[in-house]
């Protein structure tokens, strides 16, 4: 079994239900996110387009965070999920430095690294990840990549425009996007202007963890 994720970006409407469900399911503290949805606006009025991009851990087959973790707090589960052992983590933040997807945070309450685990605790008892259940448009497609009959495998076979983030880094992500674009997936392809974002003007956190 090799669990993977696919997001059909043409279905995503940026409602954030997935992000809220993730926060609630995993008790993710304030100023920390396992899953976030980024809005990117492109073009000039009237020819404009808004991209919605859900971003979470890619559960790479060749995960830099697992490789750099000095105490194996980040480890692979047999189903391919890259999991975190909070009790073993020493809080060195190497995983945050190594992850090219900005998917790991230091929990300010536990001081341990944390990230999306594809809701490993739910999968263990046969349930879908919280974000999949909450998505009103079924943009999140989750399943076993080794099973050719799974929905995700069929989706991957039927679409020619499958993308992953930063394929050049050889991390072999198990998180795919369909109907994406460079603007949506490359963080350097869009500007981050000061003071022009919706709801918040804070671009960067001043702190990591509680230290």
């Amino acid at each position, binding site marked *: 079994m090799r669990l993977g994720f696919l997001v059909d970006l043409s279905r995503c409407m*940026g409602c954030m239900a997935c992000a809220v469900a993730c926060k609630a399911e995993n008790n993710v503290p304030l*100023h920390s*996110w396992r899953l*976030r*949805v*980024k*809005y*990117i*606006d*492109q*073009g*000039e009025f009237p020819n404009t387009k*808004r*991209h919605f991009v859900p971003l979470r851990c890619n559960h790479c087959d060749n995960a*830099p965070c697992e*490789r*750099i*973790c*000095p*105490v*194996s707090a980040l480890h692979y589960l047999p189903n391919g999920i890259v999991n975190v052992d909070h009790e*073993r*983590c*020493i*809080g*060195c*933040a*190497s995983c945050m*430095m*190594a*992850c*090219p*997807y*900005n998917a790991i945070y230091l929990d300010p309450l536990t*001081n*341990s690294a944390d990230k999306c685990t594809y809701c490993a605790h739910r999968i263990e008892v046969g349930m879908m990840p919280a974000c999949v259940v909450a998505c009103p448009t079924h943009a999140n497609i989750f399943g076993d990549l080794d099973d050719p009959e799974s929905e995700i495998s069929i989706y991957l076979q039927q679409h020619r425009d499958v993308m992953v*983030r930063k394929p*050049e*880094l050889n*991390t072999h992500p198990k998180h795919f996007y369909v109907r994406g674009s*460079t*603007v949506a997936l490359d*963080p*350097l*392809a*869009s*500007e*981050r*202007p000061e003071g*022009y*974002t*919706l709801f*918040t003007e*804070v*671009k*960067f*956190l001043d702190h*990591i*963890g*509680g230290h």
Partner: protein
Amino acid sequence: MTGAEVTFDVPIPKIIWGWLVSTNMWAKSIATGSFLLGLYFIKKYPEQDSFFRKWMPLLGLVFIGITLLVTILDLHHMFRFWHIFRYPHFTSAVTLGAWVVSGFVIVLLIAFWSWVSGNKKLLDKIVVPGVVLALFATIYTAGIMGEATAREVWVFPSEMISMLLAATLAGSAAYLIIDAIYGGVLKEKIKRELGYILFGSAGLLAAMFIGELIFAKMHSEFAHKVVEVLAFGEVAPFFWTGLFLAFIVPMVLVGIATEKRKYEYAFLGAASAIVGLWLIKHAWLIAPQCLPLS
């Protein structure tokens, strides 16, 4: 540019490894550089080995102590640092580094005991493992940076050479400073040789950093942006001041000192090198963290 703007996102972490890590690398350069050069001078000038037999372990222990202190302070679970020995994960350069530095501390303690007890043969026994451990202790941080896949410009092999040169720069500077503080106890030929090492290390390091400015940006868009941050962005004051103090000033002053035999200039050049090295290491550490990864 694609004419696109991020109009909604959560605040994302920026500086994850800050001044504690810069200090770690800086102090480690002094500790390993003074050890490697100390051994070299003990073997080459046995008639004046007492200076190096004393200051090699003292400098090494003080600065490796600073390295270990800031490393542990930087852990968000500092009282779990022993996990690295209890649950080691040897694909991680962090783990390898912790083990190598622990071995290096043992070597330094033996060198210290050799000086205290006057047992010179004891030091001879640890020369080979000492050199190996000091070399690996110098370069393992390049391994950590190389494993930090997200942060291009750190992943180049030149990082390893740069760290070795930083060690010889810092080690020679440290000995020149101590010699000046103690009123010039070293023979002139040793001071000149320390000066040449400092001059050469500074020149080569300057060439490497300027080379990275020119060539790294051709590697990828991310590296290009990092170079922009280094040269013109928020860490540019650290970078250019570091470049000036660590390389240009020492080369000029040490050059004058060795030519004119005025070694007070070498002291100033050495002190400038030590300060500048921290600044440029800090700039190099921070710049790739200034860019969004997602």
